[in-house]
């Protein structure tokens, strides 16, 4: 079932440019980028039980590094890679401190570092363009065509999702789950808790950075809001909607989140109000998210 679903998804994503115009391509690509950001966030949240409120820092880190590299004249693919690696390095620096804490202190510390990055981006006008951000980010003659850029990004995101999926079933993923259930017991059974969380933190930073590094050339502009805590809240919402306890949850959540937003904004500009209400309902009654609820239903039917 899962294999069929992922094969179908891959084919569908890759076929989008062949069957549709630039608008749908843009929407699907945005969904993919948010999905990647949410999946990377969920490596810490759903798997390890750590709620990070600072993923925007790595997202923005990747976006700005890639943008600066492109503006300096480097070509597209190396710039995207550079953005992700820079985000991973940033995550290593920040993660070295964050992994010492759990629960609310972890969330507060990621929030503090996230806003610190935001403050730096906002004030370091010479490099980041400050308030205005960076504009006119080139993506090279070959990738100027939207279809080509779409295909490149889609392939990179799909490969990343596959890697993250492998990771969730790997010994690392199992260790992370053990930490979520009971960190002390995990430590006693030989899991190096802090080091394992650190690896997850840097990995999450890398993929959040990739998501940002793919966004900058897509939009061809980037602004400090990418690092703001309200941006860090987006993968949180997507993950909650889709369901944090199943691998595909954040993916489903990202599609639903942006899809719903696209529909709601046609009727009202107050789409965040609607999302607030959805989130409220989710937290009160469907903490497993849409996918969790679907899995429950499926399980009940097959058992009956």
């Amino acid at each position, binding site marked *: 079932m899962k294999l069929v679903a992922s094969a179908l998804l891959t084919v569908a994503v890759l076929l989008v440019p062949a069957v549709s115009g630039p608008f749908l391509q843009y929407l699907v690509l945005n969904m993919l980028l948010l999905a990647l950001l949410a999946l990377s966030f969920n490596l810490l*949240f759903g798997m390890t039980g750590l709620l990070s409120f600072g993923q925007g820092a790595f997202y923005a880190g990747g976006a700005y590094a890639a943008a600066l590299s492109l503006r300096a004249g480097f070509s597209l693919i190396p710039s995207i890679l550079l953005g992700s690696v820079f985000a991973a390095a940033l995550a290593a620096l920040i993660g070295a401190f964050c992994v010492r804490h759990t629960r609310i202190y972890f969330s507060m510390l990621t929030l503090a570092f996230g806003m610190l990055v935001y403050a730096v981006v906002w004030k370091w006008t010479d490099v980041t363009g400050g308030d205005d951000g960076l504009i006119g980010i080139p993506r090279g003659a070959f990738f100027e065509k939207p279809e080509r850029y779409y295909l490149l990004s889609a392939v990179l995101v799909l490969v990343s999702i596959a890697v993250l999926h492998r990771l969730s079933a790997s010994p690392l993923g199992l260790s992370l789950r053990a930490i979520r259930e009971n960190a002390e017991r995990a430590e006693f059974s030989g899991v190096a808790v802090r080091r394992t969380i650190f690896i997850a933190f840097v990995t999450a930073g890398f993929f959040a950075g990739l998501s940002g590094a793919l966004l900058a050339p897509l939009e061809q502009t980037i602004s400090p809001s990418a690092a703001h805590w*309200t941006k860090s809240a987006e993968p949180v919402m997507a993950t909650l909607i889709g369901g944090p306890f199943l691998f595909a949850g954040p993916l489903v959540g990202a599609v639903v989140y942006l899809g719903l937003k696209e529909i709601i904004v046609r009727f009202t500009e*107050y789409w965040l109000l609607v999302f*607030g209400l959805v989130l409220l309902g989710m937290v009160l009654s469907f903490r497993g998210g849409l996918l969790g609820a679907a899995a429950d239903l499926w399980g009940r039917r097959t058992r009956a």
Partner: protein
Amino acid sequence: MLFQGLVGLSEAMYLWLVAAGLSLIFGVLRVLNFAHGSLYMLGAYFAWVAFRITGSFWAALLIGPLLVAAVGWGMEYGFLRRVYRVEVAFQLLLTFAFVLIFDDLVKLAFGPVYQSPPTPAALSGAVRIGRSILPTYHLFILAVGAAVGLGLWIFLEKTGFGLIIRATAADREMARALGVRSSRLFTWVFVLGAWLAGLGGALSMPVRAISPGMGEFIIIEAFVVVVLGGLGSLRGAFVGALLIGLLHAYGLVFMPVFELALAYIAMAAVLIVRPWGLFGAREA
């Protein structure tokens, strides 16, 4: 220079009122209320509406925070109490949902324009102290902030209800075993915390522009303050608010480039070195 200090201190008072409520709620309920900035914003809007209806600043100052307290009651009684037993992350997300809802409701009701009602006549002048001229309203804010601080201290240290609150914050299980009806206590503490945020918002109404985004900004500042002072510590919240207020006031003068980052650096540093804050109690 004195003027800068006074501006900083009066800014610190709004922050103190919000942070006091945030810290009180965290100390007793163990919930970090993301929506506390939005309650502050609601305080400003409600007071503004009350001002337009009654024409009296004092009535607005009374009615605005009370309405926010009522909203706080609805939040706790209707929603928050259903998630006390689930993971902390979900509690945070529930309060975050309220941020989205309140912000958009305010936009829906009042539009995204910046509103700025007038300073009341009795407080719009200035006082000359030595060679400095200090705006009366800022002095008034300082007095209110100090009075609230004193009032909270007397309430928590000298009354029976305060004793129950402190006991519950210190050891919830034990307090319950001794007969504290914690669910009712939680409601009242949340209402008090909401009222404090609402008072901060109502007080800020004449001097700071009212806008739907004002909550998003102050909540992060309030987080910085309560982390600096120690989550759950009111004394810490007071000192933390003074520090941040002065940091912003003097930072803007002496090092405008680093002013914004300094607060977050301080927050991260405290979390790394003393996660329980400058005045908080170390968790077992």
